[in-house]
């Protein structure tokens, strides 16, 4: 299922995210995943730095 294809019942306002630089929902979800990876990396670094 492609998330960028507008839902049949979605209004015009629902199709865009309204966020600067992140115009599609796929881009928003990609950013969320990237932020999660960054969190894990930072937590691992913190654990190792003071192990």
């Amino acid at each position, binding site marked *: 299922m492609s*998330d960028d294809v507008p839902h049949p019942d*979605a209004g015009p306002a629902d199709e865009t995210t309204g*966020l600067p630089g992140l115009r599609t929902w796929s881009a928003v979800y990609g950013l*969320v995943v990237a932020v999660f990876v960054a969190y894990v990396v930072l*937590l691992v670094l913190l654990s190792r730095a003071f*192990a």
Partner: protein
Amino acid sequence: MNALDYLVLFGSMLAIAIYGVWRTRGQRGLQTYLQGAGDTKWLVVGLSVMATQASAITFLSTPGQGYQDGLGFVQNYFGAPFALIIISVVFLPIYRRLKVYTAYEYLGQRFDGKTRLLGAGLFLLQRGLGAGITIYAPAIVLSTVFGWRLDLTILCSGLVVIAYTVAGGSDAVSHTQKYQLAVIFVGMLAAFGVLLAKMTTSIGVTDALAVAGGFGKLEAVDFSLSVDKRYTFWSGLLGGLFLALSYFGTDQSQVQRYLSASSLRESRLGLMFNAVCKIPMQFFILLLGVGLFVFYQFERPPVFFNQVAWATAARQDTTGELRSFESRFAAAHEEKQARIVTWLAARRAGDAPAAEAARTAARLAHQQSEAVRLEARTALQRLAQGAKANDADYVFITFILQHLPHGLIGLLVAAFFAATLSSKAGELNALGSTTVVDLYRHVVRRDADDAHYVAASRLFTVLWGLVAIVFALFANMVENLVQAVNIVGSIFYGVVLGMFLVAFFLKHVGGTAIFVAAIAAQLLVFALYFTLSISYLWYNLIGCAACIVLGLLLQLVLPRTPSPREPGVAL
């Protein structure tokens, strides 16, 4: 607490309650009462979702968890970002398209009435149990602050929450939660600031982190594949994914929050806000607990943090046994403190072998002081029948009362109450609305007007509040509140999620197959929970998988029945 604390406590709580009443004045319709006015923006939705999940337990018990076990609990939330993305893509468009009041209405439209009732019933059962545990947390605060009996404080705080929820409905819950969260965050940040200021009078931040790391409190991520360990990266990612998928996607207390948004976009952005903020928020609260651990290495803590239970037991102690523990613990703590100071001095001097030797000695001294605490707890349980052995839930409140300045104590107590009101109101509101929409209106009375259903919803909210109070009276038996809430959820959530996933993706499976499969899967989870000793997070995955597989198998032998309506996902 002095007059300033009471002024801050009652002033902030009253101001939020008055705002809630003013914001929802003249509200009469069922839709507005249950779902809000439908004009909520993404930030309010996001904060409302966050506030519904973050109860007083989050802010009271999680620092205790951090104090006791370190940062590892943060892994519990690793699945949440992925779950929220899946809900945003799959669940949300369907809920909004069908304009349902509750998530279980969808099960009725996709399968049949009995499956809808089963989904709603499982939600009511687990959320009713969970509500009892969350009402217990503010009672701990009151009990510790005022020295009142715990059962009395459970009753008082429970009745306040019921009155607040019944008066406002869903709209009031959404719009007051943002201010309650503001009180919570200001209070928690202030507590963190004071802790940091007090800690750095003894040691620097780097030394504090070294002490925390040296005692294993900073081990946030564990990549081991052991299923026995409660928190690992994998149990958090997979089990946590299913737990969060069930909680955010099928638990009416959350579905109700994001369905109140003005559009699909606002709902999605509200969920993505949580996907990004949930992990750092939990990390910060756990770090506060780790900070408390370091602080209490240099400041002698009480032998037992539940001071009310300790004082009660001391009154029964005619032989002076408990007093002897206090002096033994003081000596053990002094010894440990000296070892830590030696360790840090060697570390600063760059003498690695000496630092390692001193660290080992400090850990040994810590084990000895913990052994004294363990003995004291055993004696306490013998003297005060029914006293809980684990005092981790009392660590943060003890710090607040003994070390924060007046005014801030009131603010922190207000923060716990704000957290209770925001999460309990969301839960009770969802319990009341599910009972009316999925049971009362669906089975008992189908043709009444909105005013009747709003009155019924208020009545059921009161009833569920009373049930929660009764459960709370038994919550004393659980060892750690935040874990207990997650365990109760994990036992039920997997199966409910399985029902929804079959509804979305396996269109050929009918109502009878999924109904029988869900009951069998729930019984299987019960049986496994009482016989296996695996991390509770895995039950989310097991329950979900069992429900789906059994549903598919049963459909092979059962006759196909057409779905009442289409709603599934077009892949």
